[in-house]
């Protein structure tokens, strides 16, 4: 475009800008149309897949977890929203959200007993009791996924590993490495004494007592002063294998 001075030049420049803008809009429209088309193709592929394998996803937990892993690798989140294609066509949204709500209820009900920390196996067992009449089996992997979705709502829902066991935390208490170490130690017998902690983990007296006191404050540990040699035992309901629910909840 030849640059011209004066009003003529301004008008030419304005006309040029307009032309570029129209071109840009056309390109944008083409891109949008392309995207719409791609989305429609993807959706129809997903529909085919769903028609053939919807039941497999529901019934077969290893297939389900494989499906989730691949989604994660690709970068999509099938549980992101109830309105997405995944939830709509495969119907897995409701399964996980319902599971999430049931997990919250169970954690709330057992909190007076274990202070907000519950073993994943125990949780699964209670879940199965609760869902006796439901069609689909619930496995540990499903629970973990449901909990990872619940994390976004705050309130401290998280899965932590203490030794071989996985524990679900449902209170906002932060647990540091020291607490974890004691929990790991407690898995052997369900309880620990301060001496044991000092001996096995090579901690100082103060450190052991401090950590045990914090766990006591948060309600995760219970004191037992009736041991035959008079030492105080700290019991941890969350890692011990005693069944915490007597009658059916």
């Amino acid at each position, binding site marked *: 475009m030849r640059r011209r001075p004066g009003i003529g030049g301004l008008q030419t420049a304005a006309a040029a800008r307009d032309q570029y803008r129209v071109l840009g809009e056309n390109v944008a429209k083409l891109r949008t149309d392309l995207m719409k088309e791609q989305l429609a193709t993807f959706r129809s592929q997903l529909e085919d897949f769903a028609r053939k394998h919807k039941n497999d996803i529901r019934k077969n937990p290893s297939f389900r977890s494989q499906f989730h892993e691949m989604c994660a690798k690709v970068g*999509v989140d*099938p549980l992101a929203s109830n309105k997405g294609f995944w939830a709509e066509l495969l119907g897995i949204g409701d399964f996980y959200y319902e599971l999430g*709500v049931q997990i919250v209820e169970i954690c709330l009900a057992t909190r007076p007993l274990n202070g907000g920390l519950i073993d994943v196996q125990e949780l699964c067992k209670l879940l199965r009791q609760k869902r006796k009449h439901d069609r689909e089996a619930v496995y540990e992997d499903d629970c973990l996924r449901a909990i990872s979705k619940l994390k976004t709502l705050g309130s401290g829902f998280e899965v932590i590993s203490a030794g071989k066991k996985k524990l679900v935390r449902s209170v906002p208490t932060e647990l540091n490495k020291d607490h974890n170490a004691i929990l790991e130690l407690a898995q052997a017998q369900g309880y620990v004494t301060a001496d044991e902690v000092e001996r096995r983990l090579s901690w100082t007296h103060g450190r052991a007592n401090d950590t045990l006191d914090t766990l006591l404050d948060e309600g995760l540990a219970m004191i037992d002063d009736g041991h035959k040699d008079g030492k105080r035992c700290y019991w941890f309901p969350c890692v011990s294998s005693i069944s915490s629910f007597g009658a059916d909840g």
Partner: protein
Amino acid sequence: MSNFFSKAEVTSSGRPVFLRNEVECHLLSGVDFEPEDHLQFPPLKSGILILTTHRLLWLPSSSATAPTSASAIPLAAISHIFSSKKSLKSVFHSPRIRFQVLVSPDGRVFDPGSGSDYSSGSGSRSVVVTAVIRGKGDCDGFLVKFCDSWRAKAWESNETSGSGSGSGSGLASGSGAGTGTGGGLYSSDGSVRMVGVAGILRKEQEMWESTDKSLQDAFQDLNALMSKAKEMVTLAEKMRQKLLSGTSSQTSGNNDEDMGSKEEMQDWLLSVGIISPVTKESAGALYHQQLSRQLADFVRTPLERAGGMINLIDAYCLFNRARGTELISPDDMLKACSLWEKFDVPVMLRKFDSGVMVIQNKSHSDEEVFARIKSLATKPEALRNGVSPTDAAMTLGIAPAMAKEHLLTAESKGLLCRDISPDGFRFYINLFPEIDPCNIYFVKDFGICSTWIKAVSTSG
């Protein structure tokens, strides 16, 4: 305008109030209502059209106009729906839906709820109304649902007809209700018919083989699907970049169109399963906007019961339980709550330092709570023994966990001091501000310090 249509009731959050048994079927945005003949009513521009089993509702979309100007046309008053003609002209125009509405003699839409007798037919005229869909919604799908709802005549029976689905944007509700092959996965009721041990083993074998084969197919299909999904993700990333950088390069003239396309893009991203950020300018997907309003309405009752503040996760469980099917994900909930600051709703989301998130009434302000805590902490009993979270919970009428959060916040504002003892946490009123650093033993005659001294010295 208000003289022609029936009035539609709207809640304070902008969601329509439904009649008994009325169920929402579909929703379109960016819709204009135009009469064939402009004498009937002035055209309504750019609103949200909601189709339910009983009525057609039009809500103005900008929150600037008061929510009282929502309008409704009962489906009973519609005498004919014109099928859409696909002509060359219609390719360039926005899609239109035309229908014929019966008009009673006084110029208003015929209202089946009123006592007037339709079959007398005296001078009932009809007017053709056109709904122009300027937004980017699914017009054909809407038309199909419109015809279905109209033919189903849900208002004539007392039960909901089979056409409506659960609340939400009317997507196919095949999810979540699949048929299993019989329950009892964990109980072994031993009712399998046995044809000898060999028979059982053979049956097991066959089952495993068929499962195996179908699984192999499934895995192959899964791989194919995932590779397609990967393409979608790269495309969606490009779209997302465009979303984030969009506003900087547009002139102010195209704002409305921009908003529409941004909403649409976010809808797409959501469908594929990518969580897109709710930017300050855009208001997120239309789905989240409606969900946000619905949530604001729903949460009002639990809030009152809980004393003005409720844990976000409790609200999530209550809401999902109330929905029954088509549950929402935690991300949906979070998005919906964060959209509240854009709309004028009486509730807000609040995050405490400990990470706990709560929903609270806007009227339930911090100052009011602090005033109550202060009055609680200056009672003689409290001056001696302090306030524990349970005491505060009983006095304030809220849950103990919430009470603890409030006490901690009051402490960080300088109102209270904590005391950690083997009994747990207790809070006392903060006396330090009253003590003059130059003259620390001087006690003012009025003020909390003297009250405290009096209270403490009278104890045994």
